[in-house]
């Protein structure tokens, strides 16, 4: 009784379940990105400060987050925190915390590189025009930084969306897991379902990421 794999997609609530799974991914990514942007801006500025303390602290933070695989961080936040301190964080909370920590580090580094890529002469000429520090940042440095940051931030967002599929390992049923569940539940009757399910997941990821890239391109064009 082996049927065509495509029919699997339309059985019961399967399509809805896939969309629900996508939402799990998107919700975590978007919340994490929204938290990461302001925190990353602060963190990036902290990284450009001349104080050795803030430099060392931010460097250690960045390297720590970079070196640790996100999976390990997820396990620490989800299981490790419970083991060590008895705080029982939900999968949702753990994921948002980990991806915000990661996003803040990455965003901070992007902000830092965007900030130092603004030539010193831009600061000089702004100040020579009588601008205060705040005005120099507000009218000259930040707008230029933003422009440089937008494509990078979008890139980070799409990376975030793809990386959040890891949350499956702390028990969250995101879109890939739903896909696997559907494939598994039908593996006796519809062995070819995998192709269709993964095809749909690919399409869903594309539909989620494409508008974000489009928005970025539009913003970039407008500000060119």
């Amino acid at each position, binding site marked *: 009784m082996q049927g065509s794999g495509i029919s699997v997609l339309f059985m019961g609530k399967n399509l809805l379940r896939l969309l629900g799974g996508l939402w799990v991914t998107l919700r975590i990514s978007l919340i994490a990105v929204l938290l990461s942007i302001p925190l990353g801006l602060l963190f990036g500025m902290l990284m450009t400060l001349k104080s050795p303390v803030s430099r060392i602290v931010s460097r250690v933070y960045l390297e720590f987050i970079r070196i640790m695989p996100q999976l390990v961080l997820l396990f620490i936040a989800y299981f*490790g925190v419970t083991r060590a301190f008895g705080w*029982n964080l939900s999968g949702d909370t753990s994921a948002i915390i980990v991806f915000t920590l990661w996003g803040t580090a990455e965003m901070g580094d992007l902000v830092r590189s965007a900030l130092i890529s603004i030539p010193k002469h831009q600061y000089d000429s702004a100040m020579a025009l009588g601008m205060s520090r705040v005005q120099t940042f507000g009218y000259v440095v930040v707008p230029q930084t933003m422009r440089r940051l937008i494509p990078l931030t979008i890139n980070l967002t799409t990376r975030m969306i793809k990386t959040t599929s890891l949350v499956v390992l702390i*028990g969250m049923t995101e879109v890939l*897991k739903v896909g696997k569940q559907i494939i598994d539940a039908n593996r006796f009757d519809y*062995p070819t379902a995998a192709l269709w399910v993964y095809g749909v997941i690919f399409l869903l990821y594309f539909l989620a990421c494409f508008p974000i890239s489009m928005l970025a391109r539009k913003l970039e064009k407008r500000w060119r």
Partner: protein
Amino acid sequence: MKLKNLFIKLITLTVASLLLITGIAGCGNAKTGSSGTASYRTIDEIKQSGKIVIGVFSDKAPFGYVDENGKYQGYDIYFAERIAKDLGVEVEYVSTDPASRVEYVATGKVDIILANFTVTEERAKQVDFALPYMKVMLGVVSPDNALITDVEQLNAKNLIVVKGTTAETYFEKNYPDVSLQKYDEYADAYNALLDGRGDAFSTDNTEVLAWALSNTGFTVGIDALGNADTIAPAVQKGNTTLLDWLNDEIEALGEENFFHADYAATLDSVYGKAANPDNLVVEGGKVE
């Protein structure tokens, strides 16, 4: 082991302090336990809360899977539903993976693990097993055109295993010459076998038997490898009230041949004549 724990604590402390620095800790719905270690819920606490949390597989038909309506189904689920019913509580399923099952129960994220959990000595150090409700041996499935019928044939071949399963430890211990290809999830492992990344796949015989039945071109060349392992529910170490209740429950269910009924409802349609229920089902926790 001590050092590893210290390491985990150190890292966790760092992460936790980072959380505080960035000020996110406040917005999570963190629930602080009374003691410093993860605590389990006693049978009374579970009854009082009106809900039992059971860790199951969500992509391992026919033992634990999710149907097209998003409902959990399978041999393990059939048992889990009965547990909830006899306790008079609701059941909440948590989807687990082979590698993280121990961690779920050890941290109290679930009350019981009921996810095709094979009893091993190593695991018994970390969790408390109740009486078994099933038994399995290992099986090896391979393509018909390069069928593996003897373990010796596996030397210098790629054998697919899923991380954290009995098969992984069995082959590592007894056949170190077999090169293992490890995957996190069953679906990935089967895909690897289907597209030829590995020469054979080994896991519980029940699993490979069922799979080979519906995948033409693949046969279980070895259907009973290693010792007969038993499958049992697991609870957190020291959770004696829940463990005792489970053992009483399993013994009582044996009287009514509950697990044969479970087999008929969930496994029979899959195995058909390929397996004899008496070779898989354990009633009343007694293995002959």
